[in-house]
């Protein structure tokens, strides 16, 4: 008890000291912390077995100026099943390290990312993936080119194991003005049985300030083609389902609440083709994300 009290006093004093001195050292700020909380809830329609899918995640990013950073993202996924089948509960873990190099000859910077994913849980595959990725961003931030690879291993038990290779590349650019951003990304995922190809096209638009209550930007996105066991390096997401994802769409709106604070609402529909029987179903969802950088 005494020990706990001592610890509380120490913690309180430390926090107080930090808060009192934070402004004094603010001019030497070199480390930035971003915290992002994310909730997604959706319904599976026309699926024989899947009922609802809920995903709650927390991501913490620690960055040293613009030079390097680490990100940790933990997601709790709950997928309920129809016909009183037990739910599937998964813990998804993603860890990213990144480093940025500034290169004058190419008038921009190269960002190197290495991401590690792990998924485990009740009634779920055990998954691990490793995904290196690098991207080029021009100094005026009007062109982004990326190339990435992901190696994933899925195992239900020690006997059955699926190994997946993914190659992806993207091009982002501002075509007319800084108010518009188009990103085109190609994916190829392949395992020993099949290869699938998909392309995603996202369009982001900043309409300019009309009213304080209106969103600061809108994003419309689509995925065309099919992909299976895909890995999204930039949002630290792994689609660890054996079903094929096919044409999918989403829209989102972002509010810049205060400096360095954002709220994002997204809604979308993801179409799937069930692997065992080829049955088509979809997942309609809403997503809420809030993030702040200190």
């Amino acid at each position, binding site marked *: 008890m005494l020990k706990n009290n001592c610890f509380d006093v120490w913690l309180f004093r430390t926090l107080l000291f930090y808060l009192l001195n934070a402004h004094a050292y603010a001019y030497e*700020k070199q480390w930035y912390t971003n915290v992002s909380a994310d909730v997604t809830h959706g319904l599976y329609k026309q699926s024989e077995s899947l009922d609802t899918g809920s995903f709650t995640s927390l991501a913490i990013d620690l960055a040293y100026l*613009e030079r390097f950073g680490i990100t940790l993202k933990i997601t709790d996924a709950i997928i309920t099943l129809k016909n009183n089948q037990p739910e599937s509960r998964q813990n998804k873990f993603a860890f990213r390290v990144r480093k940025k190099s500034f290169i004058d000859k190419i008038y921009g910077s190269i960002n190197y990312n290495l991401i590690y994913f792990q998924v485990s849980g009740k009634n779920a595959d055990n998954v691990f993936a490793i995904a290196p990725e690098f991207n080029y961003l021009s100094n005026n931030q009007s062109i982004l080119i990326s190339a990435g690879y992901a190696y994933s291993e899925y195992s239900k038990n020690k006997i059955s194991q699926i190994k997946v290779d993914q190659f992806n590349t993207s091009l982002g650019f501002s075509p007319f003005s800084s108010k518009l951003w188009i990103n085109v990304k190609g994916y190829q995922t392949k395992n020993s049985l099949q290869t699938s190809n998909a392309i995603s096209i996202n369009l982001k638009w900043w309409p300019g*300030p009309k009213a304080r209550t*209106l969103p600061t930007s809108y994003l419309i996105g689509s995925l065309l083609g099919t992909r299976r066991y895909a890995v999204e390096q930039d949002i630290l997401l792994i689609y660890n389902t054996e079903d094929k994802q096919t044409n999918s769409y989403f829209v989102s709106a972002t509010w810049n609440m205060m400096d360095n604070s954002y709220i994002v609402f997204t809604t979308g529909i993801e179409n799937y083709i069930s692997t065992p029987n080829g049955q088509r179903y979809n997942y309609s969802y809403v997503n809420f994300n809030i993030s702040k950088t200190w």
Partner: protein
Amino acid sequence: MKLNVIKTAIIFVTFGLFTQGACADDFSKNNANDISINWADSFRLEAERKYYDAAKAIEIYTKSSPVNEFAIIRHGWLNYLMGNHNDSISDYQLALTINPNSLDSRLGLILPLLAQARWREATLHANKVLAVAPWQYYAHVRLMIAEEAQLQWNTLEKHASAVAERYPSDATVQVYLARAFASQAKKEAAISVYKKVLQMVPGHIEATRYLATAGK
């Protein structure tokens, strides 16, 4: 015999001293000429936008001993003009190791950092300048550039407002204040500030466009 030797030695030493003095004198004259020629050349070449040659003209001084702080700072500036931002950063950082109190070097360092979109790092150095020189104009303007790029409109509004109070006749600061208002949809405040900008810089393109769009 002994006397002759001494005489010869005296003559030799005296001659030696004279000639050495004359040489030293000539050398210092030449060196001074060379110095002013090199620097004049460098400034002339910079004015002609021949930044590489301008940097080459003073390069010997950047490696001289004792160190020439000014040459290193100027080399950093010319590298910045050439778009050699990493070299420019290295030059300014070297200048800061020679003289950590140099505000010149730190203000210079912010420029290539901004050019490479390293907003946080630019913010760090601008704040370091402002910690010892609270109303240093260039540090404020360069910090405002970083705030604008990071879409920190609320911070920019407060910041530009405080700087505008200290530099009320400066159009640049007023433009940043107007942009902060406009980006937060504070239309009336933005109109008022852009009108001030038009008084300071008649025909200012951005102010004219905004007021035309706003119907004022």
